């Protein structure tokens, strides 16, 4: 491959000036004029109840109210992978905060006042608020109709139970493996729920115009997936894909929370109810916490057997997930983990059971890491503990088992390229692994190194497309539908096109999505758009390149093979003087000596679909399919200072090495590493979700749910990028985004253990728990029943019983 000029450079973000000048517009910044209506929703105070009657008469009479909408107006369910979520429930509510009715009014204040006048007669039902209760043989069923729900073919719900999906992966013979082991460690790890906390809450404005077209301006990571979900759910209103248009301007952070569909569908039905007038729905911070999606809680049992050499011979990994009241997206997180919970290790005998369980808690879905952060906490803690137990260096045991290209994955497919051992070496060096640091008085210093991997979790036909066109001045527009959620997608796509066409990045406008005008994109999730959409953009650019050369060849009667692109010109290897600037012919063509013109507006299209994937593995073993496109691997390490009196934890250094295949923009990759490390450390150290015993979320705000500030950063961060090319990636690139937060929690747990000899197995790993443990109080008891309701009682007593289901 020739020398790359743009790919691999820290091009300035093409949205940078928009964002620092305030030119960037987010959904709620758009103006819809004086006709705009405002909506507010009435929500359930019960975790589980039957709706006997909804009386909206007082609300309808309230000043400024135009319309009240309930489940009677839209008795439909929706969902991305399984249709188990109500637009407005008609018969029962399933979590505190679920929408039961909406008021549309002339002002936001009128809507809010009228919402309080809606009277709902509830008959409370027993609420299922822990995994143990949900999985009992005689459990109260949250979805009695589970067996009848539409779903994708790779979900396996158990009708008549609260099990929404169960992913089983079987490889080799675990029993035989454990018999060969010299040492076996088995333990339980618990991860509570977490909230995404994008700074911009969910917002949607909908207009059902007089011709019957529905347009939604939404803060979304997934405009096309939204259109698809809505085309199915809103079919009873006579709508199809052609009648629905989703426009997504800049998005103020997503982190998975704006993937799929949540409140946007409420905006859609409210707009349909008010034909001809735009309706605005804007979630408050409290609603953002309670009624979008959260990260699922999980309780995980890890049993691992190793030889004296450190070689892993068997792994049994059982994970029970608290999916909340709907699993339409969360079940795919469970699925992804069920396939990949070996971590980045070569293990001959594997048994994974990843079980998605309904509870009467807020629904969960995608969150940066898609289940991998959760399972790595237990698995990587386990790796370090086993190494210590057999007297082996924790870095060495990881290198002994590190997965390599060509190794057989747990579900039978082959591992893609990636330099995990190189990443481990680099991180170990960065934190001076093996060297004891001198601590200040009353402090202890601990170190840790962990590995991570992650694959995008996508349907086998998830695809991307791109449209690229020239303007008269030689600038370009690139219309794709990957979402700029902060990661730098627009800039990276411009860099890919620029590399092929020599047009500077600053002359390529990349448009944010509009499902009517931009090319298709499945979703911006799974750290896959650089790879997938990058391939589509590269294909579109190659097509444009072909047309540029063909046009010049035809007009000048030259051989196409002699022509090439350089500095925005078509040049010839044979005639050094020939240099035709793009701007001279990309719209108006080239005049021939007889006055006729050759050419026309030059544009190109590209598409990409990973045609080698398949989700149709055997349901009992997962063997036979090829569900994942590739894994991105890496390693992370920390140097942690622990205050031996207060338990206060200070990250002195955090290093992270990730094999991105090919760096397209080093500064943007670094941005993903630095930002991801802090988000990961926050889940490990401070973010601490709390529910009341009746299922009410107690801290749906930033006063009580702490996300980090400028004062909570690691003292030093060392970002490291490795480049083992991905053969099917654009210029060899793989995705990076979610990966950077995955190893944070096991890093902190291991470093605490290294510093003060305390092993925490229940996240978050707060200073409070460390201080209590240092005073001899067992941390597992600290929060008792309160841990996001994954379980009641002590995690180590959780029985992993599925009430007879298998």
């Amino acid at each position, binding site marked *: 491959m020739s020398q790359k000029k743009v790919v691999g450079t820290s091009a300035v973000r093409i949205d940078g000036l928009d964002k620092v000048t305030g030119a960037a517009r987010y959904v709620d910044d758009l103006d819809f004029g004086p006709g705009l209506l405002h909506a507010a929703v009435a929500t359930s105070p019960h975790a589980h109840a039957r709706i006997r009657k909804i009386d909206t008469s007082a609300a309808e009479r309230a000043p400024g109210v135009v319309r009240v909408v309930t489940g009677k107006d839209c008795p439909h369910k929706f969902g991305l992978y399984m249709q188990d979520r109500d637009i407005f429930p008609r018969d029962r509510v399933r979590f505190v905060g679920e929408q039961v009715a909406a008021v549309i009014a002339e002002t936001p204040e009128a809507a809010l006042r009228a919402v309080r006048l809606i009277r709902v007669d509830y008959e409370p039902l027993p609420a299922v608020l822990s995994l143990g209760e949900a999985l009992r043989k005689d459990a109260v069923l949250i979805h009695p109709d589970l067996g009848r729900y539409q779903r994708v073919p790779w979900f396996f719900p158990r009708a008549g139970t609260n099990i929404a999906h169960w992913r089983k992966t079987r490889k080799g013979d675990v029993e035989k493996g454990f018999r060969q082991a010299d040492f076996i460690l088995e333990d339980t790890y618990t991860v509570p729920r977490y909230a995404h906390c994008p700074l911009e809450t969910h917002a949607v404005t909908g207009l059902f115009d007089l011709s019957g077209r529905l347009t939604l301006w939404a803060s979304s990571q997934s405009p096309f997936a939204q259109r698809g979900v809505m085309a199915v759910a809103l079919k009873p209103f006579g709508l199809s894909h052609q009648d629905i248009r989703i426009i997504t301007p800049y998005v103020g*952070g997503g982190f998975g929370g704006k993937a799929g569909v949540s409140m946007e569908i409420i905006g859609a039905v409210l707009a349909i109810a008010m034909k001809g007038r735009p309706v605005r729905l804007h979630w408050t911070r409290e609603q953002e916490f309670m009624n979008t999606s959260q990260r699922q809680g999980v309780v995980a049992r890890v049993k691992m057997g190793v030889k004296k050499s450190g070689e892993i011979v068997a792994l049994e990994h059982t994970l029970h997930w608290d999916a909340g009241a709907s699993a339409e997206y969360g079940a795919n997180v469970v699925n992804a983990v069920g396939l990949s919970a070996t971590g980045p290790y070569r293990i001959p005998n594997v048994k994974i059971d990843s079980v998605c369980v309904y509870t009467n808690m807020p629904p969960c879905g995608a969150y940066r890491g898609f289940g991998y952060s959760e399972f790595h906490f237990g698995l990587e803690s386990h790796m370090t503990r086993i190494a210590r137990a057999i007297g082996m260096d924790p870095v060495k045991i990881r290198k002994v088992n590190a997965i390599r290209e060509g190794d057989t994955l747990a579900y039978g497919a082959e591992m893609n390229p990636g330099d995990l051992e190189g990443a481990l070496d680099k991180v170990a060096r960065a934190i001076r692994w093996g060297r004891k640091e001198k601590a200040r008085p009353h402090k202890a210093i601990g170190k840790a190194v962990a590995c991570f991997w992650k694959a995008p979790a996508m349907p086998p036909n998830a695809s991307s497309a791109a449209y690229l066109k020239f303007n008269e001045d030689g600038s370009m527009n690139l219309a794709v539908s990957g979402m700029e959620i902060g990661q730098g997608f627009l800039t990276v796509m411009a860099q890919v096109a620029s590399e092929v066409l020599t047009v500077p990045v600053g002359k390529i406008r990349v448009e944010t999505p509009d499902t009517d005008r931009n090319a298709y994109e499945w979703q911006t999730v799974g750290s896959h758009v650089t790879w997938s959409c990058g391939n589509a953009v590269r294909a579109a650019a190659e097509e444009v390149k072909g047309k540029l050369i063909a046009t010049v060849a035809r007009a000048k009667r030259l051989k196409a093979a002699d022509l090439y692109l350089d500095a925005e010109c078509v040049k010839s290897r044979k005639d050094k003087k020939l240099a035709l600037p793009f701007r001279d012919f990309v719209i108006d063509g080239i005049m021939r000596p007889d006055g006729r013109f050759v050419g026309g507006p030059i544009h190109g299209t590209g598409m990409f679909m990973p045609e080698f994937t398949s989700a149709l593995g055997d349901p009992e073993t997962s063997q036979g399919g090829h569900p994942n496109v590739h894994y991105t691997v890496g390693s992370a390490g920390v140097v942690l200072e622990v205050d031996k009196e207060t338990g206060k934890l200070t990250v002195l250094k955090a290093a992270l090495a990730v094999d991105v295949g090919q760096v397209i923009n080093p500064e943007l990759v670094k941005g993903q590493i630095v930002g991801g490390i802090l988000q990961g450390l926050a889940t490990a150290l401070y973010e601490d979700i709390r529910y009341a015993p009746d299922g009410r979320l107690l801290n749906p705000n930033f006063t009580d749910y702490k996300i980090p500030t400028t*004062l909570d950063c690691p003292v030093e961060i060392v970002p490291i990028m490795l480049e083992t090319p991905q053969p099917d990636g654009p210029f060899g690139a793989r995705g990076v985004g979610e990966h950077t937060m995955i190893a944070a929690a096991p890093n902190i747990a291991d470093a605490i253990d290294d510093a003060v000899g305390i092993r925490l197995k229940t996240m978050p790993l707060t200073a409070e728990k460390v201080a209590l443990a240092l005073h001899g109080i067992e941390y597992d008891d600290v929060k008792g029943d309160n841990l996001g309701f994954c379980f009641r009682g002590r995690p180590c007593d959780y029985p992993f019983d599925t009430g007879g289901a298998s």
Partner: protein
Amino acid sequence: MQEISIRLNGETRRVAVAPNETLLDVLRGRLGIKTPKEGCGRGDCGACTVLLDGKAVRSCLILAIETDGQSVTTLEGVGKEGPTALQQAFVKQNVFQCGFCAPGVVLAASALLAENPQPGEHEVREALAGNLCRCTGYEPIVKAVLSVAKKTPRRKPATRRKRS
């Protein structure tokens, strides 16, 4: 409703407000000023930061009626003559990601630099501690502010300036 008059980004604007309306709602809803964002509505996140007589405040916690006769600066009023040195540094160093916190951060950092042109790292972190950002990990923000401070020629602290 009562009419107030504020000096908004250098122009006098009159607007009728209800006594319970926040400055944020009036700016966004009545005055077409969209850069102050609502991230929490209770003063936790700093996305609605504006400058009130040069001081960084949360416009979601201030009643519009209280600002009568005062000067309000939003991001729309910064860099009208082209991006300021701080804005240029933010662009050049690829600081922001989703950008939703950017208006608040730019204003809070501008207020800091006006008050203290050469802050140390801890002063920058203290000054921006009320502006939450979920994307960047803050490091690039702090570095960019410090890079501008470094280039600013030394002068007497702003607090000693003559008041007019």
